[in-house]
């Protein structure tokens, strides 16, 4: 099954995706982060705002994702499969990278993002590192938002970031609960 996800990701990326210059995209994200740092006093708020921006994106991105990949719910039998799809199809089709899924079980997983595109030409100042800025924190909100829309309540946190002097960039996804599907009132 794992192989299928990889080829599905490749296939979608090659045939169904319009593209834009990576560097332009990365510069734009960087400029947004600079704007947030200017607008907010502390890096904690910047992290929060990035998370919020990611969340808003994720909530809408999932529709686009499902429409393009035609993945149906039985494919996501368990959380392990969800993690595989996230890494091999999701990341592939939106950012053209495939993070490595480390240690996944049915309640949590760790994604290691090698070659995070957002790191391109970015260096953090010592104040930013000391202040606790997670430069790519919008990933957290994005994954949380997208999975919430498919009934999975998760918590996403960064474990390490190359920009902060760590060896790798990785984040952890904890499954909190599967949200019950509720039929809206008055809807038969």
């Amino acid at each position: 099954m794992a192989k299928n996800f990889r080829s599905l990701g490749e296939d979608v990326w090659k045939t169904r995706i319009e593209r834009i210059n990576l560097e332009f995209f990365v510069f734009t994200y960087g400029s947004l982060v600079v704007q947030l740092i200017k607008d907010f006093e502390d890096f904690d708020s910047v992290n929060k705002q990035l998370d919020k921006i990611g969340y808003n994106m994720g909530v809408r991105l999932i529709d686009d994702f499902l429409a393009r990949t035609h993945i149906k719910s039985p494919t996501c039998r368990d959380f392990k499969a969800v993690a595989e799809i996230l890494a091999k199809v999701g990341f592939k089709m939106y950012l053209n990278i495939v993070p490595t899924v480390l240690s996944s079980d049915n309640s949590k997983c760790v994604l290691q993002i090698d070659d995070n595109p957002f790191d391109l030409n970015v260096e953090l100042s010592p104040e930013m590192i000391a202040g606790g800025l997670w430069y790519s924190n919008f990933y957290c909100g994005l994954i949380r938002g997208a999975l919430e829309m498919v009934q999975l309540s998760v918590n996403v946190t960064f474990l390490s970031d190359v920009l902060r002097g760590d060896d790798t960039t990785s984040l952890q996804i904890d499954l909190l609960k599967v949200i019950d599907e509720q039929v809206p009132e008055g809807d038969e």
Partner: protein
Amino acid sequence: MSSGRNSGLTTDSKLARKAATPSSLEKNINRKRGGEVSLNSFAFLFSEIILYSQNRVLGIQDLEQKLGEIGYRVGIRVYELTMLRERVIKRETRVINVLLYINSVVWKFLFGKPADSLEKSTENKDEYMITDNEPLLSKFISVPKEMASFSPCSFVAGIVEAILDSCQCPARVTAHTVPVDGKPHRTVILMKIDKSVLAREERLDTSK
């Protein structure tokens, strides 16, 4: 390149290790050349940038200015990168050359195609216009009626302004949506060149 980074240096302090890794300036500028991401990712990000900016301003003009500000920082970097890659290590001094550079090289870098036209205004001699019939940025954006004067391409105007500034041709740059039949998003980037630049142009013309 990366193999040299990992060999030899092992230290407990993260900051020390960070200092030991090559800085961005030492990396090859062509490393990610031609890299691509999904246009949708960009569209989602851009829509969030607009939303975020909109929540922090009062009017349409402020919003356009704020977008321009974010674009400005992108422009500085785009200019440096494209200039280095073009291997033209000289600064353009003539306005027309700078404009041609934006029209072709920069547009191609940003949107994968040159802009549709570059014109000089017939009414005002300090005004130039770059037209894009289908701006990539506006593709997924529908501007509500009550904000009809807003152009999402103010972001691009910011980029252009940064490049003109970098070339010592300061100008006031604005974006205007000017639809024509079949091209609802057609956008004109209007550049009003600073007086000092025009005076310099005249001097250069006569000294030739």
